[in-house]
């Protein structure tokens, strides 16, 4: 699998190009730190799913809040 951190960063930039990725707190919910509506957030996760090849069920959206949760989910599925 490609560099996970890079995929997550590029996917986030595809919906929110202005975000300083390295300045984000990995533990806190992403949507508390970046202005993303539910459609942006969905497109962000869908992009990650496409780039990594990991199928992410729609029901998992609620559990993927912080960058840490997202990366742990991807590691567990790869």
């Amino acid at each position, binding site marked *: 699998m490609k560099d996970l951190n890079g995929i997550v960063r590029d996917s986030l930039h595809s*919906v*929110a*190009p*202005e975000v300083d990725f390295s300045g984000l707190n990995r533990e806190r919910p992403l949507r508390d730190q970046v*202005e993303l*509506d*539910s*459609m*942006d957030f*969905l*497109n962000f*996760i*869908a992009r990650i*799913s*496409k780039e990594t090849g990991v*199928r*992410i*069920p*729609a*029901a*998992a*959206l609620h559990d993927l809040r912080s960058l840490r949760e997202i990366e742990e989910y991807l590691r567990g599925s790869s």
Partner: protein
Amino acid sequence: MFDFRMPSLGADMEAGRLLEWKVKPGDRVTRGQVVAVVDTDKAAIEVEIWKTGIVREILIQKGEKVPVGTVLARVELAGEAHEEALPEETRLKETRPAAAAVTGPLQGSAGTRSPIQKVIARAMETSKREIPHYYLSRRVCIDPLLEWIGIENARRSVEDPILPIAPLVWAVARACGEQPLMNGHFREGEFLPAATVNPALVISLRSGGSIAPALLDAGSLTIPEIMVRIRDLVIRSREGSGIRSSEFGEGTITVTNLMDSGVDRVFGVIHPPQVALVGIGTPFCEAFEKGSGPCFRTVVEVSLSGDHRVSDGRIGARFLGAIDEHLQGPGKR
């Protein structure tokens, strides 16, 4: 010979800049085909042609800015031409312009007002000056909707999930089909009901401001189909590219969705020449009495801004009631 002209992509548009030709002299064009990309103050719009024929002459070159109505190209018509609308599927197959070509007009830095914001400001001024608004709101229980989404999403992936906005837009479209006085245009002192329901969805842009392209013929679509189309509209709007002229000019009612924004209720401003706007607030949990004790349910405030020249509170109340009724059984019809 048919003159293909700079279209008016909104009441406020005076001129447009030709960003890109998708055709050249000698090319055959069919009705519904995207032939040019035009930069208005709002966004880059893909302009369709509603005739079939062969492009004979290009009169306005890439980069030129010309007034609405200016002849852009001459097209030799092939047989009988009709101006009826095409099914949306045909439009979606067309290619989209490169986003890079259209980032300019959308950029507005903090402190300055972008062209989009100025256009919206003008439309809203006209609305508040000319339209006698009335406002109604109704709390709608969305537990059946959420339960239905839960069942659907259990077998869907993040590629094709359903978000609550899709059944809400679906219910508004259904209610519009039953209440023609909410769905249409008020022009020159007269209301003309629209033949199809094309809800314009307010989509906020990261660069500031918002645009409201229409979801064409939503009355004929299922909830999953509406979800796909909303997602497509949001992506194309936020990329600042690929909104079609037909999507810009043909909204018949507006839906503004503040479900993510933490507000209880929307008091919306109607987008002229439309006559109604439906606002959706942020869902919340409330207690209600059922039998012997309190129960809880999830509700959302669905509001209506109506044009009192066309409808009134009684009609508006029935319209909100119809939306509520449809939301109690999403997906059944």
